[in-house]
């Protein structure tokens, strides 16, 4: 292990400990802000897996956020489950939804896949607004006190002191942090695996990948299902904190897809550290431009377009090109060329 790797691991560990300690040492407002940042990071990591590594540019991720949120609400209100259990069921429901959605959207080639997923998300939104038990078109709220009685909240309250609401915020924050770290770890592990290598081969050249025995459709469908699960989990978690769900908010293309796309593109699409840098930029801009309303969204869109025009690999690609520094390397060392003796002596080659 060289010095750079050691330094990276140390920095990452330090950042993790610092982030984990925020509910203990930081204000409640900071906890809520960072919760938003972490859940955005989870969404961005998932979308990056789709668009950046699998060539599946989905504009319909709000379908999975929305269904995760609604199923979480259904678990709490109709079945009386714990909200965190509801989040898990919501993630599974999102994955189940991804099956028919993939069957439909995968019929559309390349760019039309994007609008196809968008239509599918709109269908899910319209059907959900017919769900009268959860308030139909006007939506519904979590019953009063739900988050206070959530699992882990009482012990956290005893530990930290303060109100039950603050303890609930801390619990959802830690779950979001765990989810983000897990997503990052799983993405890295997956992309380093044989399947990950196959995925990137498919993205770069479908025909060449097919010729070495890769089934692109199956691989892409797998990624689509897995990212739907991650996105659905994030959706349920986000709406525990919001405590109120409406079809418009849960299936918002701006909140759950546009921001995610801009964050990923600005940070560096198709790179693993990209989304992390992207959410950092997002958070900084949000602080700076909080008073200017939509100006902030316009600026984010313009930066995103600028990145696509002039620096396609985003902020991270720019840094990596200049420094040659890559803490999460995805490239493999090419196989060694056959040596001279191998070529001249067929006997040793055969053995």
């Amino acid at each position, binding site marked *: 292990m060289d010095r750079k790797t050691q330094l990276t691991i140390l920095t990452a560990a330090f950042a993790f400990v610092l982030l984990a300690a925020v509910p203990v040492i930081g204000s409640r407002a900071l906890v809520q802000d960072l919760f938003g940042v972490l859940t955005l990071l989870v969404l961005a990591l998932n979308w990056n897996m789709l668009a950046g590594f699998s060539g599946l540019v989905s504009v319909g991720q709000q379908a999975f956020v929305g269904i995760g949120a609604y199923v979480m609400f259904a678990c709490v209100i109709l079945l009386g489950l714990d909200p965190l259990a509801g989040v898990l069921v919501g993630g599974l429901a999102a994955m189940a939804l991804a099956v028919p959605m993939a069957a439909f959207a995968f019929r559309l080639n390349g760019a039309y896949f994007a*609008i196809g997923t968008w239509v599918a998300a*709109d269908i899910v939104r319209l059907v959900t607004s017919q769900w009268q038990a959860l308030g139909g078109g006007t939506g519904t709220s979590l019953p009063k006190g739900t988050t206070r009685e959530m699992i882990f909240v009482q012990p956290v309250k005893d530990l930290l002191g303060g109100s039950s609401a603050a303890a609930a915020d801390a619990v959802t924050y830690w779950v979001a942090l765990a989810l983000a770290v897990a997503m990052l770890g799983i993405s890295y592990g997956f992309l380093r695996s044989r399947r990950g290598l196959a995925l990137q081969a498919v993205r770069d050249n479908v025909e060449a990948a097919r010729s070495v025995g890769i089934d692109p459709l199956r691989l892409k469908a797998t990624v689509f299902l897995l990212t739907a699960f991650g996105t659905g989990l994030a959706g349920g978690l986000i709406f525990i904190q919001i405590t109120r769900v409406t079809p418009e908010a849960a299936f918002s293309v701006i909140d759950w897809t546009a921001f995610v796309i801009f964050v990923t593109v600005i940070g560096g699409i198709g790179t693993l550290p990209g989304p992390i840098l992207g959410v950092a930029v997002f958070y900084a801009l949000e602080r700076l431009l909080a008073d200017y309303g939509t100006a902030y969204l316009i600026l984010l869109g313009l930066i995103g377009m600028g990145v696509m025009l002039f620096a*396609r690999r985003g902020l991270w690609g720019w840094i990596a090109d200049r420094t040659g520094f890559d803490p999460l390397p995805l490239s493999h060392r090419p196989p060694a060329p056959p040596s001279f003796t191998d070529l001249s002596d067929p006997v040793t080659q055969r053995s």
Partner: protein
Amino acid sequence: MIWLDTLAQGILLGGLYALFAAGLSLVFGIMRLVNLAHGDLIVLGAYVILVMVSVTGLNPFLAATLALPVMFGFGMLLQTHLFNRVLGEDILPPLLVTFGLSVVLQNVLLETFSADSQKLSMGPVEAVGVPLGPVTLGLVPLATLGCAVAVIAALNLLFYRTKLGRAFRATSDDATTVQLMGIYPARIFSVATGIALMVATLAALYLGARANFDPTIGPARLLYAFEAVIIGGLGSLWGTLAGGLVIGVAQATGAAIRPEWQILAGHAAFVAVLLFRPRGLFPRAND
């Protein structure tokens, strides 16, 4: 006779959707660009007409003729400075740039014109009904359908009977070889997007005449337009008209059963067509 009325209303609504879709179909046919900002560009067209009306005091129909060259120029600029830079093998850059443009346009319109609903007031024409056998149809919706048919016919003439159309088709087939014949693809693409935005302006005129609009309605129009293009089959302009009519009739039927089912019925028709005829009703392009 209610079902007949529903059918007629659906066909007229389909005319509007065909107008939404014609520009999208044109641009895709020539340069394989899927423009996610198309819906917002239609809404932009409606606001340009609105500004022309308030500046000159003209009737929206006349104001639209002033808006047409403005939108043509804007389309050429967009293509020259933005879209041409990202066209290529990789589908990601054009998608993300047009999606970014969509969000930026929406929010610039929100900042400039606020979220209030607007309408293009046509004057007494709006209330005129035309009795046609058992049903009475509004003059403006009829004009919408007429305009859609005229636009599609004109685009077909342009494509198959003019020098420019020949250049369009040649560039679409092989953008490298046409350069040997003295055609400059980037310029052809710019003209095509200019024309597409003129069609979008006509769509905007009838959109604003038939119903209220505000800066946020663009993406929904994009989805209807997209559905019409896919149902019709990629690359076929008359197919796009047919696709618009299918969506229009499906929406009108859904709305007749339950008002909140209007949009859902349109989407359902789209899914059904895609399941049974994956390449649309009149496929032409091989991709």
